[in-house]
C-alpha cells in the first residue's frame, strides 16, 4: 500500500504517527490539570490534608504524562520545516503566527509554572500555590486554543490571500484567522474531550482502589470529583461536537458528506445514516439504516436546506479545477513578467480556484495541458476515502455516549450513596480508562484524513506541500523517532502503572495503604 520511495506518503505517515502519539499525552494534560485545580481548591477551602494529598498524587501522574507531552510536541513543530518545506513557505505568513503566539502566551505559562507546581509546596502559601496550579491549567488550555486556531486555518483558510509575486498566501485579516468559526468549535470540542479523558482516568483509577477497598477516603473523594467533572465534560463534548458538525456542514462540505456517506443531494431535510456499508467504487451506501431529518437538522440547523452529496460536490470540483487551470495559466504568464490587463483580469477572476488547478500537478507539471482523463482523476482525488471516515466517526460518537452513560451512572449511584455494591460499574470504570484516547484519536483521524487531498483546504494540495527530500531521509527519521517513541512509551507506561499501583502511598506521607508495613 505504501510505496517505499514515496516521500509524500512517508511524510504523511510520519506526521500522522508523531501527531497521534503526541495526542496520547495532550488530552490527559488538558483534563487532569483542571482536576488538580479542583482538588487543590477543595484543599484551600476546607484545609483538609486529604485534598492536598489528592492534588499531589494526581499531580505526580500528571507529571509523568506531561514529560512525554513536552518531549513529543517539539517533533511536530520541527516537522513542518523538515518534511513540509513547501507548506511552510506557502502558508507560514499566516500559519506561523498562532504557533508563535502559542509559545509566548501558553507554552511559556504552563512550562514555567509546572516546576513551581512540584517544587513550590513548601515555598508558597496555599492560596499562591493554587494560583500556580490554575495558571498551569490555563496555560495547557490556552496552548490547545492556539494550536487549534492554526489547525482550523488548515480546514477553513480565512483571512488570507495569494500573492503571485512572492508565491505564497499572505495575511489579510488576523482577526478573521483568530475568530475562525471552525477554530471555536474545534477548541471547545477538543478541550471537552480532554476533560473527559482526565475525568475517566481519575474515575477509573479511583474505582480500582475502591474495588480493592484501599485508601477509600482518598479514592471516593477523587471518584466524586471525576464523576461530576466528567459528567459535565461528556455532556459538553457531545453538544459541542454537534456544534462542530454544524460548522463542518457550513464550510467543509466534503468532509461532512464523506463522514455521512451522502452520495446524493437529497431533498431537505436530509436523513442521517446510522449504519451502512459505504461503497466508494459505485458511489452508494449498501444496507443503509437512516434516521429521517436528523442530518439536515445537525448540519444546517434548518428543515429546508439540503446537505450536498458527494456526486454534486464532484461536479462542482470539476468546474473549479477547470477554473483553476485558467488561474494557473495566468499565474505562469505573471511569473514570466507579463502584467498585461488581460492576464491580471484572468488571474483575479480565477485565483480563488488556483488550489484546484494545482491538484493537476500530480498528473501533469504544466497543469494547463491536462487531458479530460487527468481532470477526471483529479476530481475523484477531491473526495477522501469514505468508509474509514464513516466508521471512525461512528466509533467516536458511540464512545461519547458510552462516556455519558458511565459518568451519569457513577454520579447517580454516588449521589445516592449506593456505589459500593455496584461493582459492575466500578469494573466498567476501570475497563473504560483507555477508551477516551481511542475516541480522541478517531476524532483527529476524521478531522485530518477528512481534509485530504489538501493540507490547506482548497488552497494547497498535500502532494505539493512536502519538502523535496529523499525517501531515505524520511525512512531514517521515521524509524529513529519511532524506535525512541516506542522505548519512551514502554518506560512511561511502566512508571505510570507502578505509581498507580502504589497509590497515594507514593507520596511517602505515612498515611496510606501499605505504608504501615514499610514505615
Amino acid at each position, binding site marked *: 500500500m505504501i510505496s517505499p520511495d514515496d516521500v509524500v506518503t512517508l511524510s504523511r505517515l510520519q506526521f500522522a504517527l508523531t501527531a497521534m502519539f503526541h495526542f496520547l499525552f495532550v488530552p490527559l494534560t488538558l483534563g487532569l490539570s483542571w482536576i488538580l485545580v479542583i482538588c487543590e481548591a477543595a484543599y484551600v477551602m476546607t484545609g483538609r490534608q486529604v485534598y492536598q494529598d489528592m492534588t499531589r498524587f494526581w499531580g505526580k501522574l500528571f507529571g*509523568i504524562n*506531561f*514529560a*512525554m507531552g*513536552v*518531549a513529543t*510536541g*517539539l517533533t511536530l*513543530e*520541527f516537522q*513542518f*520545516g*523538515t518534511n513540509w*518545506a*513547501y507548506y*511552510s*513557505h*506557502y*502558508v*507560514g*505568513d499566516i500559519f*506561523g*503566527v498562532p*504557533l*508563535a*503566539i502559542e509559545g*509566548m502566551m501558553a*507554552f*511559556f*505559562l504552563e*512550562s*514555567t509554572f*509546572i*516546576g*513551581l507546581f*512540584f*517544587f*513550590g509546596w513548601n*515555598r*508558597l502559601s496555599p492560596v499562591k500555590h493554587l494560583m500556580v496550579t490554575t495558571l498551569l491549567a490555563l496555560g495547557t488550555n490556552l496552548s490547545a486554543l492556539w494550536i487549534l486556531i492554526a489547525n482550523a486555518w488548515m480546514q477553513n483558510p480565512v483571512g488570507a490571500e495569494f*500573492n503571485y509575486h*512572492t*508565491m*505564497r498566501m*499572505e*495575511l489579510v485579516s488576523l482577526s478573521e484567522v483568530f475568530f475562525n468559526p471552525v477554530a471555536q468549535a474545534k477548541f471547545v470540542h477538543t478541550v471537552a474531550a480532554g476533560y473527559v479523558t482526565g475525568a475517566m482516568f481519575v474515575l477509573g483509577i479511583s474505582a480500582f482502589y475502591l474495588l480493592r477497598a484501599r485508601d477509600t477516603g482518598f479514592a471516593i473523594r477523587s471518584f466524586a470529583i471525576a464523576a461530576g467533572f466528567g459528567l459535565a465534560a461528556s455532556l459538553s463534548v457531545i453538544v459541542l461536537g454537534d456544534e462542530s458538525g454544524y460548522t463542518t456542514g457550513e464550510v467543509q462540505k466534503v468532509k461532512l458528506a464523506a463522514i455521512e456517506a451522502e452520495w446524493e443531494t437529497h431533498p431537505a431535510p436530509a436523513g442521517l445514516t446510522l449504519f451502512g456499508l459505504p461503497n466508494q467504487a459505485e458511489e452508494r451506501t449498501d444496507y443503509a439504516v437512516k434516521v429521517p431529518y436528523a442530518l439536515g437538522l445537525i448540519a444546517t440547523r434548518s428543515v429546508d436546506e439540503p446537505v450536498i452529496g458527494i456526486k454534486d460536490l464532484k461536479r462542482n470540483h470539476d468546474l473549479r479545477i477547470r477554473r483553476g487551470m485558467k488561474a494557473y495559466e495566468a499565474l505562469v504568464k505573471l511569473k514570466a513578467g507579463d502584467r498585461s490587463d488581460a492576464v491580471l483580469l484572468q488571474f483575479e477572476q480565477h485565483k480563488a480556484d488556483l488550489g484546484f488547478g494545482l491538484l493537476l500537478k500530480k498528473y501533469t507539471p504544466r497543469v494547463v495541458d491536462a487531458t479530460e482523463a487527468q481532470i477526471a482523476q483529479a476530481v475523484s482525488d477531491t473526495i477522501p476515502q469514505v468508509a474509514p471516515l464513516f466508521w471512525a466517526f461512528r466509533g467516536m460518537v458511540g464512545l461519547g455516549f458510552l462516556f455519558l452513560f458511565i459518568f451519569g451512572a457513577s454520579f447517580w449511584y454516588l449521589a445516592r450513596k449506593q456505589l459500593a455494591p455496584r461493582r459492575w460499574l466500578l469494573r466498567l470504570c476501570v475497563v473504560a480508562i483507555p477508551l477516551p484516547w481511542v475516541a480522541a484519536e478517531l476524532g483527529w483521524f476524521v478531522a485530518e484524513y477528512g481534509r485530504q487531498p489538501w493540507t490547506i483546504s482548497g488552497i494547497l494540495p498535500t502532494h505539493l506541500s512536502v*519538502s*523535496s*527530500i529523499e525517501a531515505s*531521509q524520511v525512512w*531514517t*527519521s521515521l524509524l529513529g*523517532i519511532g524506535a*525512541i517513541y516506542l522505548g*519512551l512509551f514502554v*518506560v512511561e507506561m511502566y*512508571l505510570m502503572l*507502578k*505509581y498507580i499501583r502504589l497509590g497515594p502511598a507514593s507520596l*511517602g506521607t505515612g498515611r496510606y495503604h501499605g505504608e504501615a508495613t514499610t514505615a
Partner: protein
Amino acid sequence: MLEYDTLKLICWGLLATLLIGFALMDGFDMGVAILLPYVGRTDEERRVAINVVGPTWEGNQVWLVLAGGAIFAAWPLVYAAGFSVFYYALVLALCALFLRPVGFDYRSKLANPHWRSFWDWGLFVGGLVPALVFGIAIGNLFVGLPFRFDDTMRVSYGGGLLDQLNPFGLYCGLVSACLLALHGATLLLLRTEAAVGLRARRAAMVLGCLLALLFILGGVWLAGMAGLSLQSQGEVAKALTPFEKTVTRVAGGWLHNYGRWDWLWLLPASGVAAALLASLSAWRGWRWAAFLASAAAIVAILLTAGLSLFPFVLPSSMDVQSSLTLWDASSSHKTLWAMLLVTAILLPIVLLYTSWVYRVLRGPVTVETIRRDSHTAY
C-alpha cells in the same frame, strides 16, 4: 504601522533576541547536563546538579519552541529551506531532546542504580548533542548550505549526507558546546556548594580560557574563508523574492561588515573579554560575576555571528542568489507587524513571571536539601 523595511530590520532583532534568549536560558540547562558526568561523582551529587536546573528547565526550552515558531511566522523561507536542509541534524537534535523531559522527570522515580545511570547519560546526551548540532548549524551558515529555489519557491538540495560535518562546522559545534558548558558551570557555581561547586569552579576556569582561545582561532579561520557580499538588492521597503538581488562570493567576505563599521569589533572583543572574565571570576570566587560574564559571552558571541552574516540569514553555497537575506526572507508587512505587537505585549509578561518563579525557587541546592526533599526532588 511602521515602514516595511524598518519592520524587517526590527524583526531581525526580534529573532536574534529570541535565539539569544534560548541560548541564555536553556544554555545553562544544556551546560549542566554536559558537565553532569564530571561534577557529579555520586548519585546524590548528580541529583544536586540536576535539581539546580530541574524545576525551571522546562520553561527555558520554550525559548526554542518560540524561536522556531517566530522564524516560521517571520521568515517562512528560512524555516522551509533551513529546517529541511538541516534534516538529519535536526532529527538528531530532536532525538536527543526527547531524553531531557523524560530524564529529568523519571530519573529519580526509581531507586535502581542502572535506571538512574541510564537517565544520567540520557540527560548528558540531551544536553551535549543539541549544543553541538546548533553550533554546527551556525558554522554551516558561514560555509553555506546546499540549497536553491526554483521560480515557484520550491527548495531543492545538493550535496551529500555528511557535508555538514565539515571542519569549520564541527569546530563551531565545539565552540558552542564549550560556551554552553561554561554557562552551566557558572550557574552551578552560583547555586551549589561543596564538591559539586568546587568542580564547577574548576570547570568554569578551564572552559572560560578555552572558549576565548577557540573563539579567537575561529575568527582567524573565518577571515580566511570566502563569504558572500550583497552587491545590490531590490527595493527593501517592498515585498521581495530572493531573485531580486545580486550576490557575489568574495574572499574574507564575512569580515567586511567590520570594515564598514569599525565599532563592530567591540562585539568579538567583548566575547573574548567576557569568557576570560568568567574564568577569572570563577578563580576568585566571584560567583555572580562569573555567571553574568558567561551570559555576556553568549550574547556577544551570538551577536558576532549574526552581525558577521548580516544582512544574510541563510547563505546558499549551491546558488548564491538563493541565499536569503532579512530583506527577502521576511513575511508580509502585516504579519511582521502582528508579530512585533504580540511580542511587545507578551514577552515582558513572560519575563515578569519567569523572574518571579526563579525568585521563589532561589537558594542553594545541596546534598542536604536533596536528602530532605528526597520524595519530591528530581
